């Protein structure tokens, strides 16, 4: 029966690579924070979102490592009647569209209905609630960035358990790690900027659906896409098959 020969050498190599990658990521947290701060300072004015770029410390427990986590500091507006009408109408159109889709697009239809359901709950909650919202936009943005930073830092360990033990070459293992982490380091602040811009345009009504559906799940799917790509790479040397 076919099997991948995973000997002690490869397991040890996976462990070393995972530890080295994690150490490198921890050491890189501070420059990553500086990169994100620079991106926010350059791009926020283009989006027409005012307010300062604030920072808060994100520390690694027990280690003198971490970053000054930057995040957009401007508060988004509490929803007005116009926001309710506009977003409610869009949600209704999306719901109708989901029923108009052919059965070929059934997963998309289900996804759209889930979005509308969450948006509907959000509309109902804000219609009944009074300010303040438990998650002000700066806190939301900081939370998403912090969760993303933790995820990115954990990636070498996750890959250690799931990819480094596979029979691809060391160069390819490192390459996939660098490409994936590099992609997410750039994606995450851009994603936060898009969220902040949308919330400023559409009010806090949009924040729940952005957080629950278009938050960390986007990074997870990106990880899975890279992982699938890496798993399709050829084996190192002669295929190690055994009976």
């Amino acid at each position, binding site marked *: *029966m*076919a*099997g*991948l020969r*995973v000997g002690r050498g490869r*397991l040890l190599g996976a462990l070393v690579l995972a530890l080295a990658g994690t150490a490198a990521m921890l050491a890189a947290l501070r420059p990553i924070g500086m990169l994100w701060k620079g991106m926010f300072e350059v791009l926020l004015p283009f989006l027409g979102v005012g307010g300062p770029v604030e920072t808060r410390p994100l520390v690694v427990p027990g280690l003198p490592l971490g970053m000054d986590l930057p995040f957009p500091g401007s508060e988004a507006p509490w929803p007005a009647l116009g926001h309710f009408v506009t977003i409610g109408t869009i949600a209704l159109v999306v719901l109708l569209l989901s029923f108009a889709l052919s*059965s*070929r697009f*059934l*997963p*998309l239809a*289900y*996804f759209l209905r*889930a979005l509308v359901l*969450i948006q509907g*709950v959000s509309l109902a*909650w804000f219609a009944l609630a009074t300010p303040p919202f*438990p*998650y002000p936009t700066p*806190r*939301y943005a900081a*939370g*998403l960035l*912090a*969760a993303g930073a*933790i995820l990115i830092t954990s990636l070498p360990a996750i890959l250690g*358990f*799931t990819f480094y*033990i*596979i029979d691809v070459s060391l160069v390819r293992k490192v390459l996939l790690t660098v490409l994936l982490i590099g992609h997410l380091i750039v994606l995450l602040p851009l994603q936060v900027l898009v969220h902040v811009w949308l919330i400023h345009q559409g009010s806090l009504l949009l924040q*729940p659906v952005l*957080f*629950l559906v278009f*938050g*960390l*799940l986007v990074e*997870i*799917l990106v990880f*899975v*896409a890279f*992982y*699938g*790509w890496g*798993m*399709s790479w050829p084996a190192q040397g002669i*295929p190690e098959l055994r009976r």
Partner: protein
Amino acid sequence: MIVTLLSLGLGIVVAILVVYTIRHYLFTINRLIGRHRQPYLDIGIADWPETVVFVPAHNEEKVIGGMLDALLAAEYPADRLRIVPINDRSTDGTAALVDDYARRFPARITPFHRSEGPPGKAAALADASTRFGGEIHLVFDADYLPGPGLLKQLVAPFFDPEVGAVMGRVVPHNLNRSLLTRLLDLERAGGYQVDQQARMNLRLVPQYGGTVGGVRRSALESVGGWRADTLAEDTDMTFRLVLQGWEVVYQNRSECYEEVPETWPTRIRQVMRWAKGHNQSLARHGPALLRFPRPVRWRRGVDGFLLLGVFAVGPVLLAGWIFALALYFLGASLLEGPIAVLSVATFGTLGNFAAFFEVGTATRLDGSGRRVRLLPFLAFGFLVNLVAVTRATLSRTSWIQGNHVSWDKTERYRETSPS
């Protein structure tokens, strides 16, 4: 108070998902580093037992000819093999077709026509199996295409007198038809190449899947024959055999080719049928498994219970999302807590992130190359499965015993039947 209760509920959901994630991860690691069990597979010359191959069919004129041709070409002693197409009240040309085959091959094919009694595959098997002898009863769905050597491979494990049932590997052959068939190919690879084989390696509970497999007739009789009142006679049979101390064997190299659903509505009906049948078996056998009787013990008991519970995880996951949504609007501090964990877990089979590892490893073991790049699209399949499984699990049929069962067939797409 409400926040505490919701948090507790969410914690329980996350704990269940973590258990399934660990289970799938361990199975995958076993396939990578464990020893592989494949008993008796390469036996070629032996005193082969008398075997009956049942092919339950209800309106299968498009495909059953191909199935019968493949069985006639099987490398199994003709005088030890009886082919029994079970025509259960078909209204198309199935009856005429199998009768034509029986006229042409009277010594080898004996059709069994049903026009009364409860309908459905389980009832058809229950009825037919009591009317035919033979030491081994193999079962194939009408749309399958077994290769010449498959029957011997499936019968060989029965040389071990402790083996009560055998299951082969199911491989889709119409995978190039749509995104769905591609995704089902990935799911099947993970389910068989990793999941079933790991359970076989670890001496847990490989599942007899109702087709591309069979049972020893004496084992069948010892557990009271096929049950007619279940939607998943295969799962039900697996656990009745295991609870009676019989071994179920999975043969990963015994491949047979099937036609998977090509449209989402067909897939949903299939998943709903499986979910209801699995849940029925969970209700029937779950408590007995957790009492860890002597032939089962705790490892197989726990694994069997988790296997039976896999379709009940859908509603659990959905409940988790509802709890998370409620906690979010109640202002609980979840930004870096359980919601993040739940989010990660959501993107696996029914909330199991390790499923991606399992599928990726399976395609690599298969040498399937670039098809694994479709991995992120599995999220679409999981979403549809989640809805279908939840609908099925919340239905009355899932949990009430003795419901009326009927033919709930998967649509066939093959254009013509080989002659």
